[in-house]
């Protein structure tokens, strides 16, 4: 069992949990994910690793309520345990293979959408510690759903915040902010976008005319997360890849986002039923 040693509600629908998982904490790297099960009849849910503390032996995840399974996760409390917590899974971000001298000469831009801000955090933290220059755009629906603002501000060079409704930061989408930065003459050696699939698609379309090297992290459906099932198949450069073992990060310009978004919907109707069933159970 994997004990929740700290729980914090970041927004009304977003929860941070620090979980006791020494083996995983020891080997986790930025860009990787894990699989969690909240109870012994639960689904295996892939979540991106948001932080890890090797000394303490803990791994941090951030979950947002989107369906029955994520609601079950968010309902667990400090002191409760996850039935299963497996990982780290997937390939680490490519930049971890560079040394600090190379990284200290590089400029990165991160484009984080909503919950995607959580997995961006360990990447920025790593790059900052290696001396790289890092700018971050965070997009949220509104001020209440903005997460990691202070944490991010302390480790990046420039933080740009935008909200859909203008309740905080600049009013507008991350794509508009990206365009503005690029038009103002900013240049980056590498950009990374993490967020909803639709956001990553439009960031890719926006970035393309600027020839901005761009990586995206794909949150596909998965069962085992180790290459066994193929539920996470994505077309990258016309070839079928498994997001769980070949990814989750890919060259944005090679990804077939329309197919990826369609494949995400595979069990949507069934999930709605499950969510409904779960709500009945709770009331």
């Amino acid at each position, binding site marked *: 069992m994997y004990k929740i040693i700290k729980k914090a509600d970041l927004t009304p629908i977003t929860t941070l949990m620090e979980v006791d998982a020494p083996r995983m904490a020891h*080997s986790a790297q930025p860009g990787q994910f894990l699989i969690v099960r909240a109870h012994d009849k639960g*689904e295996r849910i892939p979540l991106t690793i948001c932080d890890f503390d090797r000394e303490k032996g803990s791994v941090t995840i951030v979950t947002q309520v989107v369906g029955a399974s994520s609601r*079950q996760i968010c309902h667990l409390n400090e002191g409760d345990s996850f039935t299963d917590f497996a990982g780290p899974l997937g390939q680490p971000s490519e930049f971890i293979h560079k040394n600090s001298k190379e990284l200290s000469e590089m400029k990165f831009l991160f484009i984080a959408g909503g919950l995607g801000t959580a997995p961006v955090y360990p990447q920025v933290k790593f790059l900052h510690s290696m001396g790289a220059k890092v700018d971050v755009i965070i997009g949220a629906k509104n001020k209440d759903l903005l997460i990691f603002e202070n944490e991010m501000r302390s480790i990046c060079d420039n933080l740009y915040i935008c909200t859909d409704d203008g309740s905080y930061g600049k009013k507008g989408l991350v794509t508009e902010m990206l365009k503005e930065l690029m038009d103002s003459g900013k240049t980056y050696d590498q950009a990374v976008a993490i967020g909803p699939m639709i956001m990553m698609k439009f960031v890719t379309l926006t970035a393309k005319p600027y020839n901005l090297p761009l990586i995206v992290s794909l949150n596909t459906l998965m*069962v*085992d997360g180790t*290459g066994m*099932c193929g539920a996470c198949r994505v077309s990258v450069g016309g070839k079928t890849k498994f997001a769980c073992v070949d990814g989750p990060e890919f060259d944005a310009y090679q990804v077939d986002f329309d197919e990826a978004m369609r494949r995400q919907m595979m069990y949507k109707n*069934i999930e709605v039923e499950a969510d409904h069933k779960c709500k009945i159970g709770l009331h």
Partner: protein
Amino acid sequence: MKLTINVKSDYTDMRNKIPRVPVREQDPAVRAKNFEEVCYGYNAEEAQMEASRCLGCKKPSCIAQCPVSIQIPQFIYAVEQGNFTEAAAIIAKDSSLPAVCGRVCPQESQCEGSCILGVKGEPVAIGKLERFVADWARENGVRFSDKKEANGHKVAIIGSGPAGLACAADLAKNGYDVTIFEALHEPGGVLQYGIPEFRLPKELVVRTEVENVRSLGVKIETNVVVGRTVTVDSLIEDEGFSAVFIGSGAGLPKFMGIPGENLNGVVSANEFLTRNNLMRAYDPDYDTPIYVGKRVAVVGGGNVAMDAARTALRLGAEVTIVYRRTEKELPARVEEVHHAKQEGIDFKMLTNPVEVLGNEKGWVTGLKCIKMELGEPDESGRRSPVPVPDSEFDIETDVVVMSLGTSPNPLIASTTPGLETNRWKCVVADDNGVTSKAGVFAGGDVVTGAATVILAMGAGRKAAEAIDSYIKSK
């Protein structure tokens, strides 16, 4: 124990004349709608009757055909005499998973295939007798956990499938301190995620056999993905394991590479079966969804294809199996093909998919196939199928399950420097499981590619011997 049964020739004749005792099964029309076990197995009386058919050959060819060399005539004689505990003890010497093997071994091509009675009539039902003994032992709480004194050496086993469990059991009996690392949340490997409940009950059979291995002192750590959570090298260097056995199986699914394969509704047999078996999607109490639509086409002809087809049927779909050769070449066990037909699964032989068809929303609507005919035999000795020109036709379907075989997951090999693999991504190991890396052994599907439970068990046992001599020689 050495056993010789003196049989006179007239007695032999009499034994020949008893017909094979039929095994009771769930009615096909009923079982097609549930996930309960198809075969009920023998009761004591039936088992003794069937056991009495065994000739007790002086040079039994059945043992030679058993990958773990179970003393078959000996245990059958004990069954005939009603000494079921003794029968269980005889089997336990060579097999740690008899309740599994009695259910899923391809007996017709192994022990039963070489039974002398099979020459003129029907062979002794060795598999059903093994199953009876194992089930009886479980129901009567008979367990064999004799083991040598602890020798203080730690051995790590990667994967809790048949190879890993067999290797772990033998090493533990020999006094080793054994830890199994399992990537998934339930131990059992393919017994858990692959083979369905109606063929291999999880709670009753798989869990019990895993518990039996645990009762030998074997520790099982789930949720450890070797190659990610830990590595083979870190187990040896940081955690003090003297040797590592890799029994991680062949879990990577194959796809055909035809157009439309990424449409919604195309799944690998691995995904389909994992959702249903490991995640229990068929049970409304569990959260994991599974989709079958109205019609399911399963591509392939192995045991996994039969399992996927019969699972889809039980989930309420009309099911067609699409196979490119003829029924004679079907690699599945005869019993599974027979059961699948009884349950009403449609077999389209000499048929090969060329494209998955979909609608404007990206969901599967059908499978475009081409008719095949058998040409010259290929390397495997099977006649290879060749397409008949201009014979394309469409099958309407909502779901396509690709069951084309599996290959080993490259994760462990790619994170273990010095471990040699071949071009099929299989770990290279000799007959004793010795790999190119000192202290690292391997066996089962990860070495051979997808094969059977019993071959994996046999490989696990041989590797256990090799590990024992390796550690003793250090």
